Every structure is written in C-alpha cells, then in structure tokens.
C-alpha cells in the first residue's frame, strides 16, 4: 500500500473526497485529443486530396516526396524518394515527426495528456492508479527534454506554412481557369492565414521560446532588449494553453477544408 493509503497517513478509504466534477476536464481533453489523433492518422496515411491549386494542407507541407502531386512541392524540391525501403510512404509521414514532436513535448500538452490519458494524476488530489512513478527521469519520458529541438524545427515549419498562406492569395484569372494570378482572397486564404497565424502565436508563446529570448538570464538590467522580448513572450505565454487548442483546431480545419475542396465536395469561394 502506497500513496494516500500508506500506513502512516490518515486512514481514509476513498481515493478522493472531491465532490466537484473533477473528471470532466480530463474527459473532454481525452475526447478532443483522441479524435484529433484518429483523424490525423487517417489523413497522414491517406496520401491524397491534400493539394488543390493554390491551397495545400498543413499536414502535407512542405511536400518533400517525389510522390507529391504536381505543384505541391516547395519550389519543385522533392528530395525524398516516393518509396522508402520499398514502401510507398505518404508525404505527410516524412514530416509528421516535427509538428507531432513539438506538440507531444509541449509543456501544456504534457499536463493535458498526463492527466487525461495516463491519469498521472487524473486531477489534483485524486489518487492515480499507478503503483510506480519515475516521471521524466528515464526513457522514454526523458525525451521530453527534446522540446527545444522541436521548437526550433517548428519555427522552420511555421515559415513554410506562412509561405503557403501567402500563396493562397492567388486565384484563377477567370472562373474555371487553371492559370493563377496574385491579388485574390478566398475562404481558403482565410483558413490558411488563420492556421499559420495561430501556429506562430502557439510557437511564440511557448515556454521554451520564453526561456530562449531572455528567461535564461540572471541580469535583465544588462540586457534591456531581451528583457523587453521576455516580457512580451511572458504575456503571450499566459495564453499558451488557448493558443495550443486554437492552433490545433485551426490546423485540423485547414486540412479538412483543403480535403473537401480537393475532392470537389466544397467550392473554394473567392471574395475577390
């Protein structure tokens, strides 16, 4: 018997005496994250319906495989063979590790999924079911310390996705034409701009970003510019949880939108 049932502690048989709906938040988190994982897995393996001029799904950008459909690669650059070790690999699977790694090691998501999926603990002052706990001191959870690596990679991805959003300001020179010109604005443009903007807010509000720009300093007074940056990022950081959810939803919706337009289920409406 360990934990709250240890022999030296007050003898109370309940795992928790909380009377509020402590289970609601982890249940919602579980439902939303699990749904996203199922959908993202399906889309990552689908390998189709991710590009329709001028829109590309954020799940597939940058498209680096020779299997990428025409026009979807970054400046025509496709360094990865269509088949890796004899297997046809969806272009999304090549790049998925970077955004996935960034979110998996994110300090906010760690709280969310440790509570909702691993029940460690399910909520504050609610006894967890595990008999042993070593935290993030050994493999595999020690890999959470790689968050900084994924943060840097995530910034590079944000640049690519911002470029995709800029490309979305193109439109056909006339209805039905395949020839594109600049200066148009569609629902797709809005969706990609919102998605890439929220990803920037999510990345820049990150705890690692806060640390990198100035948090590691002992003497703010000797680095006034970095102090200013740190205070700005600290302000954003208080909303990191919200940015995490909104950016996740925006990326998922951007992918759904591109897929629907690509399959012809939806029409990309142009405001001008």
């Amino acid at each position, binding site marked *: 018997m*360990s*934990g*709250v049932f*240890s*022999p*030296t*502690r*007050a*003898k*109370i048989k309940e795992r*928790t*005496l*909380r*009377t*509020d709906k402590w289970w609601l938040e982890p249940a919602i988190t579980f439902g939303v994250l699990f749904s996203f994982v199922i959908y993202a897995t399906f889309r990552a393996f689908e390998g189709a319906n991710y590009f329709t001029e001028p829109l590309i799904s954020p799940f597939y950008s940058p498209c680096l495989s020779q299997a990428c459909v025409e026009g979807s690669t970054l400046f025509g650059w496709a360094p990865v063979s269509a088949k890796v070790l004899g297997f046809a690999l969806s272009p999304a699977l090549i790049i998925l590790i970077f955004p996935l790694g960034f979110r998996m090691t994110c*300090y906010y998501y*760690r*709280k969310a999924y*440790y*509570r909702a999926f691993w029940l*460690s*603990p399910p909520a*504050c*002052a*609610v*006894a*967890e079911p*595990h008999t*042993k*706990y*070593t*935290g*993030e*001191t050994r493999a595999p*959870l*020690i890999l959470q*310390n*790689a*968050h*900084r*690596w994924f943060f*840097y990679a995530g910034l590079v991805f944000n640049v690519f996705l911002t470029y995709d959003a800029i490309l979305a300001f193109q439109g056909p020179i006339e209805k039905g034409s395949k020839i594109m010109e600049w200066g148009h604005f569609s629902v797709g443009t809005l969706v990609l701009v919102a998605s890439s903007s929220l990803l920037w807010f999510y990345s820049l509000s990150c*705890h*690692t970003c*806060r*640390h990198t720009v100035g*948090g*590691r300093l*002992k*003497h*703010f*007074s000797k680095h006034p510019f970095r*102090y200013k940056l740190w205070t700005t990022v600290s302000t954003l*950081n*208080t909303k990191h949880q919200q940015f995490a959810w909104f950016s996740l939803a925006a990326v998922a919706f951007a992918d759904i939108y591109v897929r629907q337009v690509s399959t012809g289920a939806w029409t990309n409406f142009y405001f001008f």
Partner: protein
Amino acid sequence: MTRKLNLRIWRGDSTDGGLKDVVVDVNEGEVVLDVIHRVQATQMGDLAVRWNCKAGKCGSCSMEINGKPRLACMTQVASFDEGETITVTPLRAFPIIKDLVTDVSFNYKKAMEIPAYEHPTELAPGEARMEQIDVERSQEFRKCIECFLCQDTCHVIRDHEENKPVFAGPRFFIRIAELDMHPLDRLKNRKRTAQEEHGLGMCNITKCCTEVCPEHIKITDNAIIPMKERVVDIKYDPARMFSGLLRREKRD
C-alpha cells in the same frame, strides 16, 4: 444570520480513524476554520487542529476541504451550497499525528538540503546593488507562506511514498529557482543538483501545485518550467551539444 451546517471531520491518529458527522451553527461571513473552532469549543473538546494567524499568511491551517487542499481560514463557508455537507480531513500526503494535524517535518528536512545563497566574495556587506527588474522574478517566490499545500497535492509524493527521499517538491523548486535566478548568487551547480539530487525531472508539469497555491504563485510556469529549461541548457540543448559547450560545462 445563523444556520446549521453539516460537517464531517476526520478524527483519529496513526493507528486508526474515520469521518465523524457533526451539525454545527454557522454565521454569515464565517470561514471553515471558524466552524471547526466552534466544534472544538462545543462538541469535540479534544479535536486537534493547527492554526495561527487566521489571515492566510502563516500557512498553519492547511487541510483538505471536500477533498481539495486548502487553507481553512481562507475558505468561506458561503462558497459551498447551503445544505451541502463539508468534509474536512488532514493533509493526505503526510503522516498523521492526530485529527487534522499532520507531521510536515519532511518539508523541513528538504529545506535543509537546498544549499543557501552564496554571496560574491568580492562584495563586502552593504556593497551589493541590484536593480528591481533583476530581482522581481525571485520576489514572486518570496511570497510563499510555507503552507505546504503544493507539497500535499503533488502526486509524485502524495501517491508515491517511496519518492520522498529523492524528490524535494514544488515548494523547494521555487526556492531553487529563486536562488538560480538571483543576480548575485554565485553557487554554480544549482541546475545540475536540481535535476540529479532534488528530483526536478520527476515533475510532469501537471500544475496541481499552481492550482492550490493560496498566494497564487505561478509555481509551474515561473519556477519549475524555467528550471527545467535551465537544465536543458546544460544537458540537452542542441546548440550547446553541437558546439561542445556541454562538455565544458560538465568540467566546470
């Protein structure tokens, strides 16, 4: 206006114990500690409860109220529904002494394990000067009243007694952070010892310590995560790894 309140209080010691139901008068504006004192004065003369300032500043009356770690002197009875039974138990992370009093000496032992501030040898007493922006981060942590609610709610020790020897807990992570962020502290290895001796790596950032802190110290965001990032600086940072600085740090 006086009304009746249904209260369940844990009574017992290290050998046995259980929840006892009482009905007690409660007046408008009273806090849970007031009600416990009334029970002590009128119905349970031998009820053990630790308290002192009744102002949320001494950290003595920490207990669990309806399962949540809280200060009894800062918990308004009016914050519960009328007719709701309020359950009061001792802190469940520490050994029980009697009734609502627990043995929190674990925390004092941990406090002794944290190396003290090390003043620069070249500065004589009175010569130290710091600017406000350099000390304000540490000042947040000085608000701690040592109620140990964060320690009580931390599942690393609450749910795993065996981790107590190797885990200092959130209260002492803010102490380590306070010193590591101190502009004049000269002790060099706080980050490494935080990780390797005080169990910083065991924290999985579930933020319960922040949720229960009566002083609203952002324990996780402003102390634990920054300390984890400082550990990454010296142990796992890609730029430092590639530049070889990591090895130099280790030699230091």
